[in-house]
């Protein structure tokens, strides 16, 4: 774990063990037999503690992990999962929204189009990308590149990681509601395979604007929700302080979403979360994408589109009186 990682409060026991380990390892007697066995014991303890903390995360803690500053972002996966990324800019109407990255990429030998939210790591980048909150030009850019992918037979991979679409005057003036609707509408019928992976925050319409696909997966400690827990608490509990209660009530973690029929697959994270081991997380994602693309490309386009429609068509729960 790199020292720049800001530990979350509940990670404190793990951090302390790591510090002990570092002290032992850098001590004068680190090569003595006793210390070596102590180190071994401590490493086991770290693994056990990490396992224990992360196997019992409350939904609110999952939100904190999903928002962790060292969690890998789309740009990290572009480097770690793909052999090449050729960024394509601009929506041809207004600008180049930095909150959504788009471009050609190579997944081993398979050429694909990648579309993904980018939150930004440095202060400068975060400001440029509005912390991953896209404007209409971001969704338009995404759709323009996805249409191109359809034209040239490239499968599409979407990485979802946004607190939500940007709420602002310009965003409303340029049709935020319109572009999100348009993207879902078009993605439902694009004649090329689409895989969507929620890698961190799946924030509402802002997520769904690049979230309609043949397979929808989520990382183990990501969440996908109709509204942020803070937003929900503000409306239904009348105070943001109830965000933890809202997180509990919304059932938006990988524990519940597959059972609700919204998420097809959960991609396991390395011990202690993706922020502890970007490389390992990338390996898991790559395996998932490779396997899933193989499955999808073995289906005819017509069947694929029917399956895509049927998948979303089946979502929702209601009661219906049996026909007499």
């Amino acid at each position, binding site marked *: 774990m790199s020292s720049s990682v800001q530990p979350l409060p509940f990670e404190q026991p793990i951090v302390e063990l790591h510090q002990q380990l570092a002290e032992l390892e850098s001590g004068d007697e680190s090569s003595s037999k006793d210390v070596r066995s102590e180190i071994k014991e401590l490493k086991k303890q770290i693994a056990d503690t990490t396992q224990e903390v992360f196997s019992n995360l409350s939904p609110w803690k999952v939100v904190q992990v999903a928002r962790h500053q060292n969690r890998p972002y789309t740009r990290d996966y572009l480097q770690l999962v793909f052999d090449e990324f050729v960024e394509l800019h601009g929506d041809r109407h207004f600008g180049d929204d930095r909150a959504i990255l788009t471009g050609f990429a190579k997944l081993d030998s398979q050429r694909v189009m990648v579309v993904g939210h980018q939150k930004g790591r440095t202060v400068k980048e975060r400001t440029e990308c509005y912390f991953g909150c896209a404007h209409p030009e971001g969704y338009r850019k995404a759709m323009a590149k996805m249409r191109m992918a359809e034209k040239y037979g490239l499968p599409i991979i979407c990485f979802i990681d946004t607190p939500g*679409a940007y*709420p*602002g*005057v310009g*965003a*409303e*003036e*340029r*049709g*935020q*509601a*319109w572009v*999100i*609707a*348009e993207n*879902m*509408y*078009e993605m*439902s*019928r694009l004649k090329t395979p689409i895989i969507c992976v929620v890698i961190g925050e799946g924030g*509402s*319409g802002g997520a*769904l604007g690049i*979230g*309609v696909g043949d397979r929808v997966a989520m990382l183990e400690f990501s969440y*996908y*929700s*109709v*509204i942020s827990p803070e*937003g*929900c608490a503000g*409306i*239904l*509990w009348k105070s943001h302080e109830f965000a933890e*209660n*809202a997180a509990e*009530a*919304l*059932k*938006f973690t990988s524990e519940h*979403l597959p059972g*609700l029929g*919204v998420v097809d697959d959960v991609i396991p994270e390395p011990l202690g979360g993706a922020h502890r081991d970007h490389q390992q997380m990338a390996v898991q994602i790559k395996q998932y994408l490779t396997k899933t693309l193989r499955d999808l490309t073995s289906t005819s386009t017509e069947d694929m589109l029917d399956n*895509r*429609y049927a998948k*979303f*068509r089946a*979502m*929702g*729960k*209601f*009661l*219906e*009186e049996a026909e007499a």
Partner: protein
Amino acid sequence: MSTETTKRAKRGVPEGLWKKCPGCNETIYTKTADELLGCCPECNHHFYVSGKERIRQVLDEGTFEEWDADLMPTDPLQFKDKKAYADRIVSEQQRTGLNDAAITGTGMIRARRVALGLTDSAFIMGSMGSVVGERLTRLIERATEQNLPLIIISGSGGGARMHEGILSLMQMAKVSAALARYDNAGGLFISVLTNPTMGGVAASFASLGDVVFAEPRALVGFAGPRTIKATIRIELPEGFQTSEFLLEHGYVDRIVPRDRLKSEIARTIDYCGK
């Protein structure tokens, strides 16, 4: 104002006989407004009208046949905020006489058969949960099969319904996908935006019309004005997120006053040869 109400009550005037218009602040005779389809005789402010009244206004008399009225909301998450969603459903049903926020069916508009759907903003803010999504999807699928023009009149301050969590969000994708298939089949979809049309309803079926009409001065947008204000901390421009604002920015085809809606829909159907 509460004091006026008290004064009037003392004079024995039945409650609701008069109302104050938020558009011009005039006190108007409720019956006059009702005769004007729920509009102010002084300033043409468009008041809320219920879904059932809306159907009476838009369809030829006695032609409405409701579809999927037997779908009932359930509580898939066992959601509970200050109040349990299961209890909220029951109290909203009793209060509004609706079993959920959408009404769908078929009927005639000046002798043209159409598929008609609407959301009533009285039922949990007109928000879209599973029943709203399913009713609209079935409506769109039937319109596709029967080659009917499709009219959806939206009113929703709530967008996607929080109490059904992610399932509500997914109704946006489900309804939009059904509309894409309807479009593939050459269907004509006229979307009518009424006050208010916000959030996940605006960001799905409401904005996907081949033709988009809006009632005058309706609030329409993605993010709520309060959220925007809290995020960017500036005063919002006058008329922000109104029908007129959206027309100016290119997102609405026509602003249609309520008394013209029926004939404007009929005319559009004729132009499109449906």
